[in-house]
């Protein structure tokens, strides 16, 4: 293994434009994948919930919902799987410097994730293929591994990301990782808060997105019991998780304060290390200052240490070359937290009217907001990942490998980015379009579904 250094030598440094292109390509494909990944984790839960109710009560509406949602999962899984495949290519196409040096350190969580995908894909195939071919209870059971494996895959892949934020389990000698202990790398201190926060986010996002579809339908006058259930089941799941997520987010913030103080300082746009650090909301970053922000005096010190005297580390502790782009990280952080509280208010609104008189709020504004709640949750997820990933800059492996050393030194990455971005744009349009078709169609549409004899009214 002595030849590793020479093996990892690069053709030359990447041009700054290519580095930006690679980062943007990664952001587009991850930002796309994460939406489908959230649905891939959360939808099976909804599907199993309504199928279980259908079996228990014999209720036809629940059964129809289960059918419709299973179809949607089939199509979404197809899109999720291919977008995930692109990601695993891109880890090497864009970041060979990372994978060549540290591929062996973070390989195991990805391999474990691969096992989870296998399980998920195979059981999803069985589940979709056997709707009317297995006894109902057995059929329900074939869906359980889909849910478990989806959640497990989110856990494993986020372990890999947590390692990039809190690298451990190896010794660096001459730029090469040695004495690798893969399990210690996988179970690092950033795992608890990141995985928990991500998995809760996935269920929340799914709940609000699916509920939003039915809320939009109700605004157009489709107010059968079927539509009401289609709204209430996912919305309730998401609404119950929202306060939980805010607590988990607080936990994440505290962990980041100890593990990556620079990231927290960027998220809060705190330039000066200080006691009685204020909590700043909004504002404009200019140079080394934050202007026009709404400040809660000593708020940050209170949140982080429970006392106004807690000293919070600011950006002044690291040289400017080691700071992440503060404006982006701060804006993204505010967007995520803002989205979280907005969703909390919306959830509380329904909670109150339901408690008072067992019904939806009468104001059309409730449904209008509910219709876009999914988009708000997606915004929170994207913003959260921006905090995590951009907040780690200029490092890809925190403290060890800079992003400019991780990137592929080959020329013309720009062209690749443009092509990939175009393909994803087209893909987005078609995915939304096909999902719309599913809403109105009772035919088999998921690729794994068997063709049945066409029913009445279907050409």
């Amino acid at each position, binding site marked *: 293994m*002595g*030849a590793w250094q*020479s*093996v*990892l030598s*690069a*053709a030359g440094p990447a041009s700054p434009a290519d580095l930006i292109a690679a980062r943007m390509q990664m952001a587009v494909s991850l930002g796309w994948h994460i939406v489908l990944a959230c649905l891939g984790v959360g939808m099976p839960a909804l599907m199993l919930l309504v199928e279980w109710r259908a079996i228990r009560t014999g209720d036809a509406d629940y059964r129809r919902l289960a059918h419709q949602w299973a179809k949607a999962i089939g*199509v979404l899984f197809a*899109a999720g*799987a*291919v*977008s995930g*495949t*692109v990601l*695993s*290519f891109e*880890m*090497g*196409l864009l970041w*060979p*410097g990372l*994978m*060549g040096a540290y*591929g*062996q350190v973070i*390989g*195991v969580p*990805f*391999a*474990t994730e691969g*096992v989870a*995908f*296998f*399980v998920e*894909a*195979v*059981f*999803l*195939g*069985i589940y*979709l*293929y056997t709707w009317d071919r297995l006894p109902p209870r057995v059929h329900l059971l074939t869906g359980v591994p889909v849910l478990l494996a989806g959640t497990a895959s989110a856990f494993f892949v986020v372990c890999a990301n947590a390692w990039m934020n809190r690298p451990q389990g190896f010794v660096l000698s001459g730029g090469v990782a040695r*004495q690798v*202990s*893969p399990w210690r790398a996988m179970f690092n201190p950033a795992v608890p808060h990141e995985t928990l926060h991500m998995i809760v986010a996935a269920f929340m996002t799914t709940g609000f997105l699916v509920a939003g579809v039915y809320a939009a339908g109700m605004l157009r006058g489709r107010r059968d019991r079927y539509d009401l259930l289609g709204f209430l089941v996912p919305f309730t799941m998401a609404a119950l998780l929202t306060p939980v997520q805010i607590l988990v987010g607080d936990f994440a913030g505290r962990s980041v304060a100890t593990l990556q103080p620079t990231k927290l300082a960027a998220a809060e746009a705190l330039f000066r290390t200080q006691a009685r650090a204020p909590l700043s909301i909004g504002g404009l970053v200019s140079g080394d200052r934050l202007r026009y922000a709404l400040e809660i005096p000593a708020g940050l010190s209170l949140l982080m240490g429970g006392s106004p005297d807690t000293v919070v580390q600011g950006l002044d502790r690291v040289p400017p070359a080691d700071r992440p782009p503060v404006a982006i990280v701060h804006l993204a952080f505010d967007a995520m937290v803002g989205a979280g509280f907005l969703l909390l208010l919306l959830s509380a609104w329904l909670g109150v009217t339901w408690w008072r008189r067992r019904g939806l709020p009468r104001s059309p504004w409730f449904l209008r907001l509910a219709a876009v709640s999914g988009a708000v949750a997606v915004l929170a997820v994207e913003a959260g990942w921006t905090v995590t990933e951009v907040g780690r800059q200029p490092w890809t492996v925190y403290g060890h490998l800079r992003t400019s050393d991780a990137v*592929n*030194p*080959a020329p013309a*990455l720009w062209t*690749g980015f443009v092509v990939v971005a175009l*393909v994803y744009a087209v*893909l987005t349009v078609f*995915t939304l379009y*096909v999902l719309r*078709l599913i809403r109105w169609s009772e035919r088999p*549409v998921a*690729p*794994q579904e*068997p*063709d049945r004899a066409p029913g009445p009214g279907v050409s």
Partner: protein
Amino acid sequence: MDLAQAVLVVMWAGLTLYALLAGADFGGGVWDLLSGRSRTGMGRRRLIETSIGPVWEANHVWLIFVIVLLWTAFPAVFASVMSTLYIPLTLAALGIVARGTAFAFRKAATELWQQRLFGAAFAVSSVLTPFCLGTVAGAIASGRVPPGLARGDILAAWLNPTSLLSGVLALMVCAYLAGAYLCDDATRAGHPGLAEWFRVRALAAALAIGAVALGGMVVLRSDAPPLFSGLTHRALPLVVASAVFGVASLLLLYRRAYLPGRIAAMLGVVAVMWGWPLAQYPLMLLPSLTYDRAAAEPAVLAATLVVIAAGSLLVVPPMVWLFAVQRRSLRDAGTPE
């Protein structure tokens, strides 16, 4: 066998499965493209769709499995290959996206023009992806991917006689595999007419493959001498075996013995797939990077093998069940002609 060899074998087994299963999927797309106009090709397209519908997803994970194993167990090889060959690999990745989604969307589409559009995307990307993956194999085998980040020529590494040859061969082999599978499936589903249509074309593909492979040996001799000498010496038994299986499957197909023909075709592909690494063993990247120097540390290799072993226990039984379900329904339902 040391740990690195064990991982190498498992990885190659995964790649072989990918070639056999996904190769047939790609080939299905190729036949979809050649199935004729919308109306006449309807029955053929339906058969292709029922044949690959329920398992296409599961086939696909094999590639991810191989990629993840490569970067975990042989990180430097992964980094060198991906960085030098990023153009064909980006194209292959985009082909996978277009194919997977278009296939799913076509089923959901209601209008003829939509089905045509998604169908075309599906078919075109079915050609693009195996071709690009084939050029990648050719680039590695002919020693055009030196160790290091983007050390090779990002164009000439995959636009050269050996790469183009292996790209074309990969595409044709996919088509042949799919043709042989589809004859079998059509017969089982009770559509001898469809089976006939695929039989004639699969036979033509087989003859073409034979011709290209023979001509290809001449190309390899001048363009990739080390590979050529490996194939004609150490790996010769496998090369011969693949020729024998190829001819056998051709004859079996000709005599309408579809199931044995299908098995012989698969064995032929397996022989080629294992001939290549045997020809260049112990080198992973020419001229001098051997597998043991490229391998990750033993702790990583061991952990990887443990994960794979545990994973197989979890995955294999349901996978067998899935295949059984698919076979059964293909027989029960039949496919509308």
